[in-house]
């Protein structure tokens, strides 16, 4: 138990905090914003290692383990996109390129996916791009503390959904993601004006969708695909935070409305997972763990 907490919570939080420190200590330095995506990507990678107690090879034996490399790639893309004086066209090219790689690598080569692989690659690439953009857009308009808190709640919700869908490993990794976001929330509380999560938007979108889509492709429980997409793309509703900010519903009131709206699709996803579970014949055993 303690090993799990150490590897899945303490280690990723410590790595995230260490890398995020320059941004928190020098909030007015534009270049310091670039450490935010690196902090989230490296924190998640550290937690991935802490949970699995091994690193993922290239290519990994288990296809889903691409997610750690995708998180690091998104972190690098995020750094380029967050650096000052980078031309807009370069930012777009990097963002679209990273989304394309995500779409290409997140879909496994299972034989039964042959007919739909291309479609899923495009869908996944578009999803990660849209969710990342909405997070960025929202971060520029919504209150940073509220937005970070909402994303943290979303990560906890994603973890709960993944456990309900019989993929505890992915649920555990969603816990790692939540641990990293917890550090972002502390940073946002410490520096109230600092838009800490915005530059890390592409990484947050990548991690959230990596977990949900991988769990969907590996599903053996009969949970509907729509549930996985809803849970993975829920951070897209960060855009609502941006909208609330734009119409001047800010602060904790805005965060509350935002939280309800982000958690609603995850709630639907959990309900669908539980319904799929209830269709499994009842066991005489209270719990198999």
């Amino acid at each position, binding site marked *: *138990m303690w*090993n*799990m907490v150490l590897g899945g919570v303490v280690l990723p939080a410590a790595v995230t905090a260490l890398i995020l420190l320059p941004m928190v200590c020098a909030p007015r330095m534009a270049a310091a914003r670039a450490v935010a995506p690196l902090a989230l990507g490296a924190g998640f990678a550290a937690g991935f290692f802490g949970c*699995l*107690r*091994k690193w993922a090879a290239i290519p990994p*034996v*288990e*296809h*889903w383990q691409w997610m750690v490399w995708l998180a690091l790639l998104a972190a690098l893309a995020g750094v380029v996109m967050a650096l000052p004086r980078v031309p807009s066209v370069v930012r777009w090219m990097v963002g679209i390129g990273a989304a394309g790689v995500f779409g290409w690598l997140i879909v*496994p080569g*299972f034989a*039964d996916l042959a007919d739909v692989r291309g479609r899923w690659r495009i869908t996944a690439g578009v999803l990660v791009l849209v969710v990342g953009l909405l997070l960025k857009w929202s971060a520029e308009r919504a209150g940073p503390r509220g937005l970070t808190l909402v994303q943290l709640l979303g990560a906890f919700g994603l973890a709960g959904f993944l456990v309900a869908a*019989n*993929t*505890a*490993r*992915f649920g555990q990794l969603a816990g790692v993601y939540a641990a990293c976001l917890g550090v972002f929330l502390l940073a946002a509380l410490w520096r109230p004006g600092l838009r800490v999560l915005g530059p890390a938007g592409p990484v947050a979108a990548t991690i959230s969708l990596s977990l949900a889509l*991988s*769990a969907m*492709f*590996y*599903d*053996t*429980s009969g949970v509907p695909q729509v549930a996985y997409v809803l849970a993975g793309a829920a951070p897209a509703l960060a855009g609502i935070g941006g909208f609330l900010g734009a119409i001047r519903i800010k602060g904790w009131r805005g965060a509350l409305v935002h939280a309800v709206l982000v958690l609603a699709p995850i709630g639907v996803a959990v309900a669908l997972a539980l319904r799929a*579970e209830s269709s*499994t*014949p009842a*066991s005489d*055993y209270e719990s*198999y*763990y």
Partner: protein
Amino acid sequence: MMKRSTTGVWMVLACGVLAPAALAADAYKVDGGHSNVIFRIKHLNAAWFYGRFNEISGTFLVDDADASKNVIDIEVKAESVDAKMDKLNEHLKSADFFSVREFPTISFKSTAISKGEEGKIKATGNLTLHGVTKEIGVELEPTGPVSDPRGGQRAGFEAIFTIKRSDYGMNFMPEQLGDEVRLIVSIEGKRGA
């Protein structure tokens, strides 16, 4: 009924991928219904838990005369894992354990077979589990051959050996489940008809 070989029956399990010539007339086809692959693992460090796989296939060959033909090749469908509880079965099939969508089969293919002591057979081969292939050595206790009352001939063997699941990348829940897994493999096959 045929007399049981006392010097150790040279048995070969060869699945359909083997060249037909190698299987020839001596080939035994695994009878999945009468074959068993059972695993044992420590649960919560409290007790041994047993599960099994229900779909086993392959072919084997008994050949005392020509040892060069001897090969062992077994295939088990990972999706057929059966641990008595439906919810547990689903969890075992998931990416947390056997990841059956990515790794649908578990196989053993022999690379060398030799006579062991007391009529047993020593087999070395590649065990592929969860996408990882590792060479292991197992000792087989041959049974049969006997004449099948319905025609043809039947023979089998049993092998009991232990692997570490972490060697095959299956390291989820290390504190709740033991690392060592004992496998009890009992195969029955039929040749002729």
